[in-house]
């Protein structure tokens, strides 16, 4: 299979390049799986541990992020987060490169194969279902903050041994806002952008009473306060992060999954908007990390994972149009990265070995104490 070995070689080259850029810019050391400090295990017991997963906004390429010319776009990652993290330079997604199906694959640890644009649940159990069923946790302990209507079934699979009743609660901030502003939505249109993957297809958002009840009962936010704060925000991801912070403060779920999506405006083809999206995502990741460190329920017992669901097409592949899409399936669009930070996770270390996208769920299981029995991946030992 010469194409497989060629792809592997390209992935390794991307990983080495990332490592070299990070070593030069952030002074990181090359890590090994076999040397962990003694304090690494001195963290909270699994029952008190929390995990926050952030998917990094629709995928960004190295040349706009980790390479020399791109580092100006990710100052927070470079100077704040990466020095405090274990950084994996080679996370490979072997599945379908569509955002909903790829995020579902990340959340199940299995490469899902459903139609990316279909309103369906993942077929394999999600991390949320393993977590809740194995550890007998209530529904309030696992939440997903998702960017668009298409993600409303991400929290729960159709698997007959799990599925209904075991999933995460999914909050769609744009639906909330749509419901809250039903009579005056014009002032909030900039926060309701949706579905970048097919920019010319924008289903209307609809909210209902349930969402408004969520707002008041769970997030402890009055409609007026929510509307008033939303007016100070500039993008859908800012709205998502605002909601995530409310959740952290008032519900404090042990497993919180936040899918950022602003970067995916790249599908519209305007490079400046793509760069703006990267810079905003970088800032929002930093804000969430700071929130983790300052919220009493999270400080000192939370592991943060940040990873894109996949990359974007390279400039070299004539079949694509560079940054705009992720349609070629080339090595660059399949080879991404992951950052892990928190108690027990080694700081300022880079790992070059290949990690699979499906390894995330078993890793979350090892951190939180559940067994992802149907996942195709393996726990990433370096962060355990």
């Amino acid at each position, binding site marked *: 299979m010469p*194409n497989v070995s060629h792809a592997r070689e390209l992935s390794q080259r991307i990983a080495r390049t990332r490592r070299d850029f990070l070593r030069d810019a952030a002074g990181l050391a090359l890590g090994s799986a076999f040397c962990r400090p003694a304090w690494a295990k001195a963290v909270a017991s699994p029952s008190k541990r929390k995990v926050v997963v952030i998917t990094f906004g629709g995928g960004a390429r190295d040349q706009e992020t980790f390479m020399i010319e791109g580092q100006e776009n990710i100052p927070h990652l470079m100077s704040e987060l990466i020095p405090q993290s274990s950084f994996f330079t080679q996370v490979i997604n072997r599945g*379908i490169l569509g955002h909903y199906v790829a995020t579902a694959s990340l959340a199940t640890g299995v490469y899902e*194969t459903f139609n990316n644009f279909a309103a369906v649940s993942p077929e394999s159990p999600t991390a949320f279902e393993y977590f809740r069923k194995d550890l007998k946790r209530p529904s309030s302990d696992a939440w997903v903050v998702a960017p668009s209507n298409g993600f409303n079934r991400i929290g729960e699979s159709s698997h007959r041994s799990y599925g209904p009743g075991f999933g995460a609660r999914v909050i769609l901030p744009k639906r909330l806002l749509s419901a809250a502003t039903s009579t005056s939505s014009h002032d909030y249109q*900039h926060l309701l952008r949706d579905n970048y993957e097919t920019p*010319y297809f924008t289903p209307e958002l609809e909210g209902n009473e349930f969402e408004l009840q969520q707002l008041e009962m769970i997030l402890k936010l009055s409609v007026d306060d929510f509307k008033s704060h939303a007016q100070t925000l500039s993008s859908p991801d800012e709205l998502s992060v605002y909601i995530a912070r409310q959740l952290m403060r008032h519900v404090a779920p042990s497993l919180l999954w936040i899918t950022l999506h602003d970067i995916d405006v790249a599908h*519209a*083809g305007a490079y400046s908007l793509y760069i703006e999206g990267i810079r905003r995502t970088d800032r929002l990741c930093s804000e969430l990390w700071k929130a983790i460190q300052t919220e009493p329920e999270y400080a000192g017992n939370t592991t943060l994972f940040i990873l894109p669901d996949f990359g974007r097409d390279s400039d070299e592949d004539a079949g694509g149009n560079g940054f705009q899409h992720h349609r070629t399936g080339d090595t660059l669009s399949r080879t991404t990265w992951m950052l892990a930070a928190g108690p027990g996770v080694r700081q300022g270390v880079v790992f070059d070995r290949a990690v699979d996208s499906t390894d995330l769920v078993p890793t979350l299981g090892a951190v939180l104490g559940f067994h992802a029995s149907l996942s195709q991946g393996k726990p990433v030992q370096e962060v355990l």
Partner: protein
Amino acid sequence: MLPSDLKPEKFDGYPPEARKIVVNYLAVLRQLPLSFVPGLLRELVNYDFKFPAERKSHDRELEYLSTLSAGQMKECFHGFADISLSKQLEDFDWVRSPAQFVERLSAHLWSTHQLDNFRKVSNDYADRLRTAVPPEPPPIPRLGMSVIGQGVSSYSDPLFRKLRAHGAYYAHINPDNGFQDLLDAVTVRAKAHPTPYGHWYIDGGESIACDAALACVSYKALEPTRTVLLRKMQEEIDRPGMGPEALRTTMAQMRPADLGMDRGGGLHDEILERFEVSVLTEGSGTQIFSTVFAQWAAREALRRAQPLTLLVRFAPRQRQRPMNEMLSAEAKVPPELDFVGSLIDGDFAAYYNWLNQQRLPGAEKSCFLVWFEGHNQALAIGPSTPRGSESASVADLRQVLAWTL
């Protein structure tokens, strides 16, 4: 149906030139695997509306395949033959609707984890074809020119960063009459080397008057077409059960007449009109952002028409607004423009214009120029231009072109 079952009457619905070439090479098509033939037919069905360079490329490919023995054919296409297809794909009417088949094939390849393998066999085939039928070099070195930053009064960040390593940066350009000089250069080349669709002028705003020898496409001229298209898109989106894939299929089937295109005054050119429609219906973002329109039109012109000369001028695009609002055909007030964002878009798009030009035959002799419109900065790339250099010369664009070509 399998390719081996193909018969001439199956192609009765094809336009005349397309039908002729397909029937001429039916013996070749019958030997090809199903994972390959519809992709070829998707191109051939539009043969009547293809640019000369595309036609020649298809002719040469088919002629080459017709020279292969049965054994060579099998060896050449075994990778495609090994791709596993579903019964639904085999049963699909791929002769009548090859583009829809290819869309379904793509989804099938992704979901069955065969995409990487398909990519590999496709690349191998393209390499083999290039070796067996080397593309002909252009009669003169190609020249690409990109003009960016229209309307920006000042900008202090460095420009042309992706291109600087490949050419000479000029910081003392005299901008007077700059755009007209570039357009004149295209006209001179078009008159000296007349070739159908060989010399192009693409404008992301309103084009200025140009010689009829140039293929001219502009965002502004297509405004009525875009309005009709946006209205049709909105109607489709509002239909119950309509999804993004169905919308894409519907858009791909749109023809100039569906969008009310009529150049009038004897200027009817269906090949160019179909090109314009394809830019608007197949490109993502081309309907709403002028910078994206200009970049995608340039990409497609280079890929398909392989022009000898291409001048692309980027104009300010509208500021980003919610997608629903941008897609609305019933704009009540002119949209606010994003000048600096458009400059950044154009700067990167110029890099893509150069990359796409370099993918064409004769790349080693090709020349390229990018200019910050109305300002003193430009960058030129040519076979004799020192790479990564910076020129202190005070010059106008005519002089820079003369030094570069």
